[in-house]
């Protein structure tokens, strides 16, 4: 199952009006600095061989200034030797919020399945997730959230809940309409009071 190119994956999300954070490939420390335009950024190494990016030191968070960017870029290149082929992605630094995971999978027997849970580093630790078969209804989405142990963290106010519910519906639609998408991870999606952004995208086709 090949990994869909990050920017193509982003394009697919765009098509379903799923918001993801501003990103671009960079091929040098200079181009990374150009992308930053003086703001704080994230650099990530993307390779099919790496699922656990943060654990492997492949995510450089919250970097700032030409010097820091250059050091981070060089370190990624060094780590990347074992992970070829790879690309380096520059992203804007997301504002803080609650990290959730939204995922999709193809069950051999039942077909497309949608997942939501507490995201980021908590995914593996708590495995607090809810699944539903696609396509889901709005009521299914509401149920998924209310059945999470961490529901009070994930949906800390009604507005955040509405955002996630509509996001879940969109992802369900994407999964249902794109037979070729076999797996999908939006992890984390950072949810804030009035909006959200998918910060990392993995789509397998």
């Amino acid at each position, binding site marked *: *199952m090949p990994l869909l190119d990050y920017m193509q994956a982003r394009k697919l999300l765009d098509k379903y009006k799923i918001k993801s954070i501003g990103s671009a490939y960079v091929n040098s420390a200079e181009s990374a600095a150009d992308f930053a335009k003086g703001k704080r950024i994230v650099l990530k190494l993307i390779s099919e061989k790496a*699922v656990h990016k943060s654990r492997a030191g492949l995510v450089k968070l919250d970097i700032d200034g030409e010097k820091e960017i250059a050091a981070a870029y060089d370190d990624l290149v060094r780590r990347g030797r074992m992970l070829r082929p790879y690309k380096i992605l520059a992203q804007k630094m997301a504002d803080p919020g609650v990290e959730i*995971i939204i*995922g*999709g*999978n193809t*069950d*051999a*027997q*039942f*077909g497309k*399945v949608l*997942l939501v*849970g507490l995201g980021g580093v908590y*995914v*593996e630790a708590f*495995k607090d*997730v*809810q*699944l*539903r*078969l696609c396509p*889901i*209804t709005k*009521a*299914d989405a509401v*149920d998924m959230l*209310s*059945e999470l142990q961490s529901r009070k963290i994930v949906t800390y106010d009604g507005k955040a809940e509405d955002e996630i519910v509509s996001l879940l519906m969109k992802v369900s639609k994407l999964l249902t309409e794109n037979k070729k998408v076999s*797996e*999908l*991870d939006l*992890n984390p999606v950072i949810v804030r009071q009035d909006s959200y952004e998918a910060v990392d995208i*993995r789509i*397998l086709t």
Partner: protein
Amino acid sequence: MDLTPMMKPMNVAIIGASRSPGKVGNVIMQNYIAAGYEGKLYPVNPNADEILGRKSYRTVLEIKDTIDLAVIAVPAPIVPLVLEQCGKAKVKSVVVVSGGFAEVGEVKLQDRITEIAKKYRIAMVGPNCLGVMDTRAKSDTMFLPMKKISRPKVGSVSFVSQSGAVGSTVLDVIAGEGFGLSKFISYGNAAYVDEVDILEYLMNDDETKVIVLYIEGIKRGKEFVELARKLTKKKPVVVLKAGRTSAGVNAAHSHTASLAGNYAVQEAIFRQFGFAIANDLSELLYYAKIFASEVKPSGNRVAVITNGGGAGVITADEIASSRYLKMADYAEGTKKALKKVMPGLVNIANPLDLAGDADANRYRQALDLIGADRNTDMLVVIILYQTPGADPSVTREMVQKKITLSKPLLVISVGTEYTEKQAKLLEEGGVPVYDSPIAAIDSLEALFEYAEFKSRSSTR
């Protein structure tokens, strides 16, 4: 697939019927006779002229009647031959009790009999199963002696079990419950008729109000989902799914894949389509019991009436810490009316502690007022029969109230001999009784969740 001839047979052929006590074919014959089955019984055995006082036939082909149900209890290698004869004799349905097929690696032999069943379009349950029981038709293909496993009384719950052992154990326990049974189907290896066919039949069966399902694996995923969409809109299904530990063992390409193993997906499907998920055999029965009472809650507010303060608090704790239920806050009018009729030592609150000297009269007054309270959707009544005032007259009040009340009502009662006797009377009167607050509140919550699901799916 129409399973009516199997569940309501006008006549039954028992192939492999035997004169020797203890043999499977003998036990099945005896059970049919003992249960008072009213249709015609045809023993089939190539070496006998008469079995248990009935004329025996060499083969099913010798019988002049068209057979609705043939129970096949012969050694596995002979099953293909016998089944072929059933096909030629236009038998409408068969239950293959015999083991020795896919469960022991004899996949080819199983495929062979499945082919034969398909060729003649015989509804075949099994092989390797206990078969079917219909309490109204007094038809029962189980090879378990009556004295070792009680048969449930007639009721509205139908129980489907892939496993014969789990099936017979639960059946034995159901026999001790007040709610009774409509149908029991143990379908074993599911070579032809599987859970989808059975559930579809029960969905359309008017005698079945509640379905209880023990399942190990779903064979036809897509068909199951299609059916599940319709099924729970019509009637509640309580499910116990085994096989939790085999989930999620595949090497994962993504976080989602590792968290979405087949077990997790099946559980999600049950949740999505409004099944009540039980985690063990006792929960399966607890849930069945509350659903069998056939009253739908209109909300999540619970009133607790008790004759023991401590038990009331424990129950209130369970309700307050449950996910969807909450303690009711009586309407002002109810509070005033309660204050008027209750003795001074009764504090008007929820839980309502009627005190240790509560008798039938006090229970009735409380039930009447709280039963009519517009802020109360469900009633939990704790009766500790150890106290002086709690006697059979309280039991009678409860049974009376259950008849007139349109809100869910259950009783929590803990104790031994005396209590058990009263609990049995309550259950016979249609009042579900629980011996623990946790079991009671979990069951009530399952009932509420299903009601929510149903009202939600009807407005979609």
